[in-house]
């Protein structure tokens, strides 16, 4: 099998998965309570519930709500593939605009948290590996265990209490300046620092025991040089598939953290749309998040295959 057909087949599988995920999301929200025509009528003409049946029928016809479910899904899918996710029930804005605005707030925070988190994790893991079995190593492992168990919403509240309320160094809520993003990004990075420190440390300690490194030691190369020059780049590359999935996971974490800090990101968009029963926005947010996950899975899988030829050899037997 040539690499290109493998990629093609996996791309097809990812697309099928994505299609099923989109259908499942559509199905779940299709049966959610609340008459859509009434939601739209209330948003457009005000007044609770008492919309004229003629108006409701007109709205149903306009939005295609009177058509069978599968036809509705096909219509939605057709326009979604052209990045048209319909209009919001509530303010009639294109859903794609609502979504782009939300992601514009979320992506910088997520990227900052991810980059800073991975770098801190590499530093901590290197320090722990160089001084392994020492008090520093134990401390770093203990801190990482705590960090992995720390609920992000609580960490966020503690950060607000310490850095905004007590010390007054950083703003606690909202957006506006880059300093507004420091605490949310720091909160979001706690989890990534904790889990990646453990990951890198485990990898480095295992790799340091490899026999071929003894050649370097015999030639008089120091442990630190071996670690930073010969192992660390390898460790980062080898963990790329996991890091790729983690980057997608940051969106999920951002939903919680942004709520703590009252930021208008994906989390606020999702919760606001749910409150208003603005189902087109909810559906688009869920499906796009699923798309990001599927893409991350696909890339992670491809990276793993690229880096580990054994996975490629296993392929025909596995399917």
């Amino acid at each position: 099998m040539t690499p290109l057909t493998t990629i093609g087949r996996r791309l097809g599988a990812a697309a099928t998965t994505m299609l099923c995920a989109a259908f499942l999301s559509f199905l779940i929200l299709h049966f959610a309570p609340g008459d859509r025509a009434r939601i739209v009528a209330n948003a457009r003409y005000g007044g609770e519930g008492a919309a004229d049946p003629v108006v409701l029928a007109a709205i149903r016809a306009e939005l295609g709500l009177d058509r069978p479910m599968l036809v509705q899904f096909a219509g939605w899918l057709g326009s979604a593939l052209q990045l048209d996710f319909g209009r919001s029930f509530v303010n009639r804005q294109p859903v794609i605009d609502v979504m782009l605005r939300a992601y514009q707030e979320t992506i910088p925070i997520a990227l900052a948290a991810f980059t800073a988190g991975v770098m801190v994790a590499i530093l901590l893991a290197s320090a722990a590996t160089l001084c392994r079995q020492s008090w520093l190593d134990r401390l770093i492992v203990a801190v990482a265990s705590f960090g992995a168990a720390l609920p992000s919403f609580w960490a966020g509240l503690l950060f607000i209490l310490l850095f905004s309320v007590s010390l007054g160094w950083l703003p606690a809520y909202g957006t506006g300046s880059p300093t507004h993003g420091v605490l949310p990004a720091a909160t979001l990075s706690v989890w990534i620092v904790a889990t990646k420190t453990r990951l890198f440390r485990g990898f480095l300690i295992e790799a340091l025991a490899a026999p071929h490194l003894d050649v370097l030691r015999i030639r008089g190369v120091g442990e630190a040089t071996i670690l930073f020059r010969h192992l660390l780049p390898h460790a980062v590359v080898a963990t790329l598939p996991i890091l790729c999935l983690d980057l997608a996971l940051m969106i999920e974490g951002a939903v919680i953290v942004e709520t703590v800090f009252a930021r208008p990101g994906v989390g606020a968009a999702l919760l606001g749309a749910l409150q208003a029963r603005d189902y087109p926005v909810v559906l688009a947010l869920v499906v796009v998040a699923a798309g990001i996950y599927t893409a991350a899975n696909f890339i992670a899988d491809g990276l793993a295959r690229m880096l580990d030829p054994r996975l490629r050899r296993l392929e025909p037997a596995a399917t």
Partner: protein
Amino acid sequence: MSAASPSRRSRLHDVWPAVLLILVAIAVVGPWIAPFDPVTPDYRNRLAGISPSHLLGTDQLGRDIASRILTGARASLGMALGAATIATLVGMAAGVLGATMGGRVDWTLTRLAEIFQSFPGFIVAVAVLGAYGPSPLGIVVTLAATGWMGHARLVRGLVRSLEIRDHVVAARLYGVKPAPLFRVHMLPLMLPPVVVMWSENWSRAILSVCALGFLGLGVPPPEPEWGAMLADGRSHMGAAPLVMIGPGATILACVLLINLAGDWMRDRVALDEVRAA
């Protein structure tokens, strides 16, 4: 490397199964051992500090925080436990079914797991609970539905590798029927890694349940739940930090203990593997 020094530390580390059992027990009996009514407000005692009768102070409505934490254990620990256990059982069933039936069943189950895997679990949970309205059953089902895939993959792999072990092949050739073959010769060997994954699932589910509660998608008030307690107390945290320290530290402690127990079990499982090989 942690498996290299088992004898020296095993005595101390044998407490971990007991820790898990105690947490399960707290989830069950927590509401019954709470010293104060967790729901009825007591406005004269609002935001009280630490005292012998209120060990963790009182909240913005004068309710004893320690009692609310104990009562909330059923929601926070219990619902997470339910979700993790259902996810484990469903995942095991799917894994065993896929591995033993093979062919189309296996293919379908694997694809199904892939589809569920492509969902960002927490975002889906928020969307489903937000759209249908939060309820305890809904929370358990949503979290179980977004958590079974890892178990399915693990168990499928375990069954496939166990099927070709010598003792299983020998038993099958001896004429042991499929059900006893699975129960006696494969299940005991599968359980340790499954229990490890179950504990991981439980601690993750606690964080999810509390995060949902924090977002207002947990059990409806006034029923206490740790995440919701944090959300309720946040506007008072500047004046009375106790309202957020108790519930938050409880979540941290539970998740940490379950994770450590899981780490311990994983080391033990790895050790058994080494011994068996």
